[in-house]
């Protein structure tokens, strides 16, 4: 039997038994045709490709007002949901009559989801809670509205001078333009379990060497009931990147030097990476598998003595419904090492609020951004356990109300945010640079290659992109 297809009055017959060689002349011609077609198709489609969607907010756009019946749609970092949904939404309703519709995205997918929302043409969201090291990619994608004129026109009403100098420019400024206002001023400090330190007769460490000694002693003496250190080493910039950069600042290093060149093979960088490798045996197993949730849970349940993490841990640790160590913890500035004697933190993560270029309610979005980042709201969310927000304004950092809720952590928080924290790269492509760095660090921690090899590879990758 064979099948006959009528083809415009003509036809062909396909025999039921077809014998072909694996790579016939006909197959070769098909492949060549496919490749040729692709070569033609690429430039043609490229000519129809995407274009920038840059948009600027007018200087006379509102910074306040009534927005009854207007629902603003927000795409936010998942750990920030409580701050928007439970704290800000009711207050915004009372202040403006408007509503908030909050959608959460995991922190490692936040930037891509924001880009896709605009680039795909969906344009569902008005306001983006954006991660500052993704700022360059968001601007490159035309996803964030240029707020320069609006901020310049309303600098007094917005109280621009009240933002912490250490974070205002890093979070909002790119290429001379501003794309948002700071919302969450993230830095790390070192938290410790005071009960474990007392039990094993050790002091909170001031240097990374002391940190190693404390970690080793507690892990050894506790015989499995507790670990001296919790090292967050999950292979994403937000986790392992923070752990490395905390040590880098401690040893006095930088990610890029004053000339903008990568400095990942400096003595400080090597010391920082070596520290991550050396502490692993006495840390909560296994650092490369420890992410944000595992680290927090281990510290709050009393299983680990030392944890360098975000400052809002102070509120979680003191909350008896979430913490078994309420009242039995402390915090100090990040340790120092090598020749460096001055503690310094880094802007580990950190978020701003910007307006999507596809926003359907840009005026209401602008008013909301100004309102949500004002001192009163910043104090409110910074003082709420589980909101995951830290101060972005000097008035909040110095407020007694904030000091009262973060208790013992207030000293190192003020020292960190009030100082000169290290700023991560934020130009277009920065997330890739940081991913390259943590990929290489993970190989060193896993023992697949040396610290020097890892940092050398990361340096090469950064040099290709930054120079």
């Amino acid at each position, binding site marked *: 039997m*064979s099948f006959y297809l009528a083809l415009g009055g003509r036809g062909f017959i396909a025999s039921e038994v077809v014998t072909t060689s694996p790579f016939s002349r006909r197959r070769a011609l098909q492949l060549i045709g496919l490749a040729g077609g692709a070569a033609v198709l690429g430039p043609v489609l*490229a000519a129809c490709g995407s274009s920038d969607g840059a948009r600027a907010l007018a200087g006379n756009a509102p910074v306040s007002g009534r927005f009854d019946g207007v629902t603003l749609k927000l795409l936010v970092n998942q750990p920030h949901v409580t701050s928007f949904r439970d704290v800000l939404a009711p207050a915004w309703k009372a202040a403006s009559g408007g509503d908030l519709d909050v959608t959460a995205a995991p922190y490692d997918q936040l930037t891509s989801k924001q880009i896709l929302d605009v680039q795909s043409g969906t344009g569902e969201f008005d306001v983006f809670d954006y991660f500052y090291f993704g700022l360059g990619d968001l601007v490159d994608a035309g996803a964030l509205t240029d707020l320069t004129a609006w901020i310049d026109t309303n600098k007094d009403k917005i109280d621009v001078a009240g933002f912490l100098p250490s974070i205002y420019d890093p979070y909002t400024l790119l290429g001379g333009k501003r794309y948002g206002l700071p919302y969450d001023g993230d830095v790390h400090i070192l938290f410790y379990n005071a009960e474990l330190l007392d039990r094993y007769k050790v002091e909170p460490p001031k240097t990374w060497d002391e940190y190693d000694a404390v970690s080793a002693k507690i892990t050894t003496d506790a015989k499995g009931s507790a670990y001296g250190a919790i090292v967050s080493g999950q292979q994403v910039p937000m986790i392992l990147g923070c752990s490395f950069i905390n040590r880098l600042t401690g040893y006095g290093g930088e990610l890029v030097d004053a000339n903008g060149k990568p400095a990942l093979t400096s003595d400080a960088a090597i010391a920082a990476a070596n520290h991550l490798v050396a502490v692993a045996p006495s840390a909560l197993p296994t650092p490369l598998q420890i992410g944000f949730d595992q680290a927090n849970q281990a510290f709050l349940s009393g299983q680990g003595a030392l944890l360098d993490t975000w400052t809002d841990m102070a509120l979680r640790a003191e909350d008896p419904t979430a913490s078994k160590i309420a009242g039995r913890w402390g915090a100090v500035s990040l340790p120092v090492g090598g020749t460096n004697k001055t503690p310094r933190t880094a802007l580990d993560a950190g978020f701003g609020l910007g307006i999507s270029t596809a926003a359907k309610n840009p005026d209401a979005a602008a008013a909301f951004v100004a309102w949500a980042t004002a001192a009163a709201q910043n104090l409110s969310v910074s003082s709420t356990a589980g909101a995951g927000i830290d101060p972005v304004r000097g008035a909040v950092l110095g407020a007694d109300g904030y000091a009262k809720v973060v208790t013992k952590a207030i000293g190192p928080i003020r020292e960190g945010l009030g100082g000169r924290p290290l700023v991560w790269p934020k130009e277009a492509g920065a997330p890739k640079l940081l*991913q390259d760095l943590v990929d290489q660090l993970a190989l060193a921690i896993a023992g697949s290659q040396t610290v020097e090899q890892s940092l050398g590879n990361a340096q090469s990758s950064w040099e290709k992109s930054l120079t």
Partner: protein
Amino acid sequence: MSRRVPLWLALPAVAGLLLFLVYPTGYLIALAITHSSLAHPLRSFSGAANFSSALSSAAFVPSLARSTVFAVLATVATTSLGLTLAVLLRARGTKFGVVGALLLLPLVTAPVLIGVAWKLLLAPVGGGFAEAFWAIGVGGFNPLGSGVGAFLVILLIHVWQWTPFAVLISFAALGVVRPELLESARIDGAGTWRTFTTVVWPAIAPTQWAVAVLELVIGYKVFDLIVVITAGGPGFATTLSPYAIYQTGLRGSFDMGTAAAQTLIFAAVVGAVATIVTATRARALKAEGS
């Protein structure tokens, strides 16, 4: 005998092919030969630059071999285990029964849930196996802590998840073996193994090869377990190709051009291996037929 079919009857199929095969494939090829980011697809013609970038990626290139090893090991394990379990089930009777239904549970459970469940079980502190590890003197042991360990754990979970698929198909295939042939073999004095190799296997071999090809493709496609359990680590130990491509396109660099090139390269590797398996199958079946 031949049969005339009007051409227009083929239009739905042609439209489907254009929509679901030709257009996506053409777009993928176009992405692969242009500078394309998540924000700006098809920005400008790039020639072979994306392929060069793909082949210089520290994560992607080793992932091709890693994915192949994973898929082959998974195929051997799931197919052989599946057949063994199916034979044991068949020995109990012709009904799949409660035991069979329970065996299918991993197959019908969402992969993300499987990943989360195993991650919680394997957590070194507070995990379901933590107490057991302490009891046998390896307290704090984390099977996901080393590269080899994490790879084997992912492989074991995958085998646990996909063996029921092989059981299901093999059980059905065993049903086609005619009882009188088995009876004849028994009367002729053939033992269990001899009966299996000379009577049962020839009847089910085509099905088993089909199961093997399907399991091979499924093994190449593992993604969700990696995302949930190891995120490709430690290092790149569990970075299989689908995860490496996802990382390139949607995390970190948002480099859709290179991700598309990686997808084409990966498809070529999977196609080559599948072709080898299919050719081996044809040769084996032909040999058995002769």
